[in-house]
């Protein structure tokens, strides 16, 4: 159920260049599933005005805490990066439909592919897949080493490979460069990252079951404003979907790329 809550900052830390890890505590954590997101009001003033959609990187239901990892790149996220321990943050969520963890059977293998700030939601997904007895392979793409994060966390969960555009960490190039070499065996893939990455994954594995998480500029975050619509490949039954409320995760082939 969607809730609006003033959540408490438990901890905030800078974990890479312009990348922040923020842990919040509150009741709405109990309803979270991997791949969903929250809509955050970063300031109590009218400036900046709109909320920021941010993905969920880790869920700890026992302590009613969740972690989000975000890039401070605009005014809103810069303001959020100043939130200190004990401070209250206005959060609406959890929102949208996340990754189906049951898509891979126990004993099977899942390929998790992420790009940049699309990597965080894969962490909670991997945790839950592992808890179901699914082996996970992580292929994580970044621009450069200085913006990479969570190497230890992902490595604990399964084989983890880094790819950087400038070659400063792991393989030089794009995730597909590494996947061409690696030729991994898996039952289904999950991908969250920029559109070209989603497209490349969809094209690379036409026979495989796959789930893609999308990002689009949002207004309301709940499906009312029609700002974040995407065209579907099936123009007969449904000609568009809303990233915020129908997604952000869609099975491969649903959204026109």
């Amino acid at each position, binding site marked *: 159920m969607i809730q609006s809550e003033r959540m408490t900052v438990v901890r905030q830390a800078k974990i890479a260049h312009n990348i922040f890890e923020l842990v919040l505590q509150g009741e709405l954590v109990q309803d979270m599933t991997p791949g969903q997101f929250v809509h955050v*009001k970063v300031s109590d003033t009218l400036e900046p*005005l709109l909320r920021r959609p941010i993905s969920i990187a880790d869920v700890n239901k026992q302590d009613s805490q969740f972690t989000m990892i975000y890039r401070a790149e605009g005014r809103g996220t810069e303001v959020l990066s100043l939130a200190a321990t004990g401070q209250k943050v206005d959060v609406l969520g959890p929102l949208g439909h996340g990754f189906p963890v049951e898509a891979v059977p126990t004993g099977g293998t899942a390929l998790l592919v992420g790009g940049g700030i699309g990597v965080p939601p894969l962490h909670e997904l991997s945790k839950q897949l592992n808890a179901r007895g699914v082996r996970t392979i992580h292929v994580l793409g970044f621009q450069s080493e200085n913006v990479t994060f969570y190497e230890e966390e992902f490595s604990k969960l399964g084989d983890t490979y880094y790819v950087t555009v400038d070659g400063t960490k792991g393989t030089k190039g794009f995730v597909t460069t590494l996947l061409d070499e690696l030729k991994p065996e898996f039952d289904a893939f999950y991908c969250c990252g920029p559109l070209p990455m989603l497209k490349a994954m969809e094209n690379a594995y036409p026979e495989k079951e796959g789930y893609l998480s999308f990002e689009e500029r949002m207004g309301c975050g709940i499906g009312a*404003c*029609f700002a974040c619509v995407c065209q579907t490949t099936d123009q007969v039954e449904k000609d*568009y979907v809303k990233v915020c409320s129908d997604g952000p995760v869609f099975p491969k082939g649903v959204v026109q790329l």
Partner: protein
Amino acid sequence: MSRINLELPGLSLKNPIMPASGCFGFGREYAQLYDLSKLGAIMIKATTLETRAGNPTPRVAETAAGMLNAIGLQNPGLEKVMNEELKFLEGYDVPIIANVAGTEVSDYVEVARQISTAPNVKALELNISCPNVKCGGIQFGTDPATAQELTAAVKAVSSVPVYVKLSPNVTNVVDIAKAVEAGGADGITMINTLVGMRLHEKTGKPVIANGTGGLSGPAVKPVAIRMVYDVYKAVEIPIIGMGGITNAQDVIDFMSAGASAVAVGTANFVDHFVCPNIIDALPAKLDELGVSHISEIIGRSHR
């Protein structure tokens, strides 16, 4: 006895607060958050004769204390709105104001004729002010003669009172207001968004795929207040005011300028509970002002 109920043509309002068209879809999403029956009315998303796909994305961009949007009147079309969306809203005790849009006069007339027969549609809001579509919308609302003609044509077929939504993107909004009154409008809703543009910091190109978008949010409130103030002096028909309302004080400001009720737009995206919150805050506001009923403040800036 309620201190905040109001009677407007076609509308018995429990309170003067209604979500503005385009900011509330057809109510389904907000119905997950609170009881829609609490609202004064709901202005549903613009409805056209046929399904509309809207504009390419990105469709929204943030600006200083505001936002730009260029959704492009995306909606499922008249038939689905009547059979599915309005039917869904029948489950709530709240009057619906149907926002009517089109490409030709005949589209407006047909949508108005049919949608005004829905049992819960108590008024129409004629959309002659959307800045984000190539045909239909704003060009009907920038020429007084055209605006008057369209109002009269819709009025002739509508089973319920007709309100006309005015654009701020004109040289003289009072001329348009007088024209729609002469065309038989029962009321005016104002203002729609202001045409604006934001450029991308790195590329220098417009952020919104459409190039321009409609500016809304607290940034436009002073413009809206001025326009409501001017139009109130020039027409006899009631005004539903909107433009940057985020709290009970904003409501008082609009009503002081001459609005008989208000609509809340962008603020619904920022605080999804803003409408019920404002409704709850109004009685205390009336106490502060020393008035017993909210109607007493309508147009007080002119007295």
